[in-house]
């Protein structure tokens, strides 16, 4: 049960990390399924993968790309990076949830996932701000953020271009949500389990 020393209750850092990891795992699970469903239904044979190279709006954020980098980066910097990536997805997820409704015969499962991911992403952001507040010695860095200007491309008249814009956004969401999930699992093992998960 929650720890309530002399009436002031507080969730432990371990508890906060366990919930954050469970949520990041779930968000990536949904993002992955949504990408696969879209890919199977709308992208077969269109060669989108070759064009999707280097198309993510968060590409400018230097994030760890292998185990060594993920282990060497200071945990406060990695936490700020996670916050930055999450914030950078707030805006596109709001529009994704509404624009997906306009895709021809968009299956209910894609629509539902877009809304669910948007909600859970906000929830994970709330949790990460709480974790950073606990872990951070200094002020919470609000500066890491990359703007998204992809809305017009989701509304293009030409179907192929519009579908590619969706494909690219879902491809990037799958990639970034996987990064966040992986980094949180590394941080949990480092900060909570002394690298002995």
């Amino acid at each position, binding site marked *: *049960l*929650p720890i*309530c020393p002399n*009436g*002031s*209750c*507080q*969730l432990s850092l371990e508890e*906060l990390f*366990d*919930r954050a990891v*469970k*949520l990041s*795992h*779930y968000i990536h*699970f*949904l993002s992955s399924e949504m990408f696969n469903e879209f890919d199977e239904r709308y992208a077969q044979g269109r060669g989108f993968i070759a064009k999707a190279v280097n198309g993510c709006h968060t590409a400018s954020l230097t994030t760890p790309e292998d185990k060594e980098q993920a282990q060497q980066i200071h945990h406060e910097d990695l936490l700020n990076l996670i916050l930055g990536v999450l914030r950078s997805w707030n805006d596109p997820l709001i529009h994704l949830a509404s624009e997906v409704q306009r895709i021809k015969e968009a299956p209910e499962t894609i629509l*539902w996932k877009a809304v669910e991911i948007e*909600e*859970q992403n906000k*929830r994970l952001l*709330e*949790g990460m701000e*709480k974790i950073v507040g606990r872990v951070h010695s200094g002020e919470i860095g609000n500066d890491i953020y990359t703007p998204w200007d992809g809305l017009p491309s989701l509304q293009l008249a030409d179907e192929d271009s519009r579908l590619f814009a969706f494909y690219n956004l879902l491809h990037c969401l799958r990639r970034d949500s996987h990064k966040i999930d992986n980094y949180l699992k590394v941080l949990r093992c480092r900060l909570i389990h002394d690298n002995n998960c």
Partner: protein
Amino acid sequence: SPPEKPTIVKCRSPEKETFTCWWKPASDGGLPTNHTLLYSKEGEEKVYECPDYKTAGPHSCYFDKKHTSFWTIYNITVRATNEMGSNVSDPHYVDVTYIVQPDPPVNITLELKKSINRKPYLVLTWSPPPLADVRSGWLTLEYELRLKPEEGEEWETIFVGQQTQCKMFSLNPGKRYIVQIHCKPDHHGLWSEWSPEMYIEIPTDFKVKD
């Protein structure tokens, strides 16, 4: 006289997204008494009032998604007030993750089969409650089943982890069994109610559908 202090009975969340608390009024001192549910969140001074007294019926407060956070612990009290004064309940601490109580499993099937050595065994299958199924991976459920001969006293309970099927071998031919299943979130949370009772009769000598 002022009303006696009410008691917060319980708080429950069906799916880790919303939750509801119920309280029990005490004696109202013979005067019209109204109740106010107040709460604060860990690490915040601000005190909020119940967002919705209606949805979950009398003496209840319903917290919708917007008002439900599972990153914090709620400190909840209920104040009873009449013209002579008021009285406040003891504080009730709520961590949403610990009060998740799912609905029972559904689509339960029982099928009698015969193993190669002709002994009968029972195959049970079931599905997670609809709400949890939609959120697989977010709400991971564990299951426990219980069965007993109809006229028997003692239930035999078997924990089956996250599986949604189970084989029961040691059954007595000629007996009629009652079977029920319930579920609970892994780690924290509470067991659901038991599913409705289901009956299966183990024939004394039965033919397997080939």
